[in-house]
């Protein structure tokens, strides 16, 4: 982390992660958003460089422009500020499955070297050590969105050699690739420490970018396999003061609205 006294250049790892994810969205793209970091990133993009990004939440709110961040996937704010609200069956059939979504954001409890995601269970399915919430909309986002952006903080618990359960497919357990899936799968994995991208041939996640001030050792310590590093490894541009200001304003508005 950059440690400079100017407050607009002091930022948290989550802010770096959110800003990096936001930068991956382009104006006019249709984006299927989940709650939490993905929603923060998508709205930051909308409020900064991509005002015409189209956000869809699985509650059926289409092209919604919330003024504050939603706490749940079905906040009234999302419905009030949407161009239209459709039923849940329709959002999955007519909008996601039909291929109208360019980018899906996913997170998970575990990711493996081939971008497969687990949000179902730690341990065995029948005798779980930790029972997680489950699939939700993720398997179909993973399959049908044009591409998938994964956001996940790095740790030995989250970046594992093999996930305990494939909830949402990346490139398959053996990295066999995307056979018969409409979408391209995870094109980028954005973490609190850097950015990984799948290798074009092997589909293995390779470190493509490292956030400013992060040591390579830290990356290796928090990934459960021997991660390869791209020859052209770059350092992520730190958040601009505009990006940070917009994100912090949004968070402050949100906190204020929810404290009422």
């Amino acid at each position, binding site marked *: 982390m950059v440690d400079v006294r100017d407050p607009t250049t002091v930022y948290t790892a989550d802010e770096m992660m959110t800003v990096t994810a936001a930068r991956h969205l382009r104006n006019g793209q249709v984006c299927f958003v989940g*709650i*939490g970091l993905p929603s923060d990133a998508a709205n930051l993009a909308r409020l900064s460089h991509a005002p015409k990004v189209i956000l869809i939440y*699985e*509650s*059926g*709110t289409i092209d919604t422009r919330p003024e504050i961040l939603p*706490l*749940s*996937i*079905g*906040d*009234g704010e*999302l*419905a009030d500020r949407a161009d*239209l*609200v*459709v*039923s*849940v*069956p329709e959002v*999955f*059939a007519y909008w*996601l*499955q039909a291929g109208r979504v360019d980018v899906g954001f996913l997170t998970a409890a575990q990711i493996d070297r081939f971008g*497969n995601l687990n949000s*179902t269970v730690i341990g065995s*399915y029948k005798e*779980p*050590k*930790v*029972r*997680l*919430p*489950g*699939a*939700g*909309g*993720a*398997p*179909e986002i*993973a*399959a*049908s969105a044009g591409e998938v952006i994964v956001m996940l903080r790095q740790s030995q618990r989250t970046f594992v050699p093999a996930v305990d*359960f*494939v*909830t*949402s*497919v990346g490139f*398959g357990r053996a990295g066999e690739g995307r056979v*018969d*899936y*409409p979408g391209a799968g995870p094109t980028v994995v954005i973490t609190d420490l850097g950015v990984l991208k799948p290798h074009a041939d092997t589909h293995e996640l390779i470190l493509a970018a490292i956030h400013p001030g992060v040591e390579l050792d830290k990356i290796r310590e928090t990934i459960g396999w021997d991660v390869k590093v791209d020859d052209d490894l770059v350092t992520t541009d730190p958040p601009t003061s505009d990006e940070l200001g917009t994100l912090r304003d949004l968070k402050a508005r949100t906190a204020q609205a*929810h404290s009422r």
Partner: protein
Amino acid sequence: MAEFVSLRDGIEQLVPDGASVAMEGFTHLIPFAAGHEIIRQEKRDLTLVRMTPDVIYDQLIGTGCARRLVFSWGGNPGVGSLHRFRDAVENGFPSALEIEEHSHAGMAARYVAGASGLPFGVLRAYVGSDLVKYTDVASILCPFTGEELAAVPALNPDVTIIHAQQADRRGNVGLWGITGVQREAVLAATTAIVTVEEIVDELSDHGPNHVILPSWTVTAIASVPRGSHPSYSMGYTKRDNAFYTGWDVISRDRDTFARWIDAFVLSHNGPEGYLAALEDESLLDVVLSG
């Protein structure tokens, strides 16, 4: 035609032990008061069906009403785990809980098939997911293109329970805002119970996403103002976010949970008592301090 009933009579007469019961509402309009009444009446061996079992099903599972859960995402939205659900799945407490698990798209397609009188639904789903090993999904070939797709069995609950903003005096039901899968869940069910914020002379006209369920598709209607707390009823109430956050602490411990259920649900005859208890600020402190 729908009959107007009290919440107590509706649950007593229409929700038998052993029934499959779908209580729907996607974050919005979750029928909590009806869930509490099921707890009060100590219904047992229920198959609980719901896309997003959140705090309402945590309460039903924690009080031993459920034998089985059919679902697609079981968490406390924006907060974390459902601890009573986890305790049942991980430790069989208070009793073992069978689970049948789908994706959201799969559950939605199952309700649509049920509402359409079809035995199955077709969707492009579950590809590459381990879910196919553990759930009721089949593969089906397109007879025209040969493409392989997923088939899921129709979902036709014995009873669907929803909360809506309004019913008119003829028993037509109106809801708006985020309407989730409620229309399909009602039309797929044998029996439908609707709790409403208000009974009105004429349903409001709330725009494009306004769902109307005609009286003859509904079995019973009970007037239960604020019956969706801590979820919300757009136009009537706000979501109680603090309750959802606080539930993490309440539900984490078996005894604390039991004290909460006793103090907020079982000690009262109906939803009025629950709402009054929420206003008593010392009560939660008593529950938490044990």
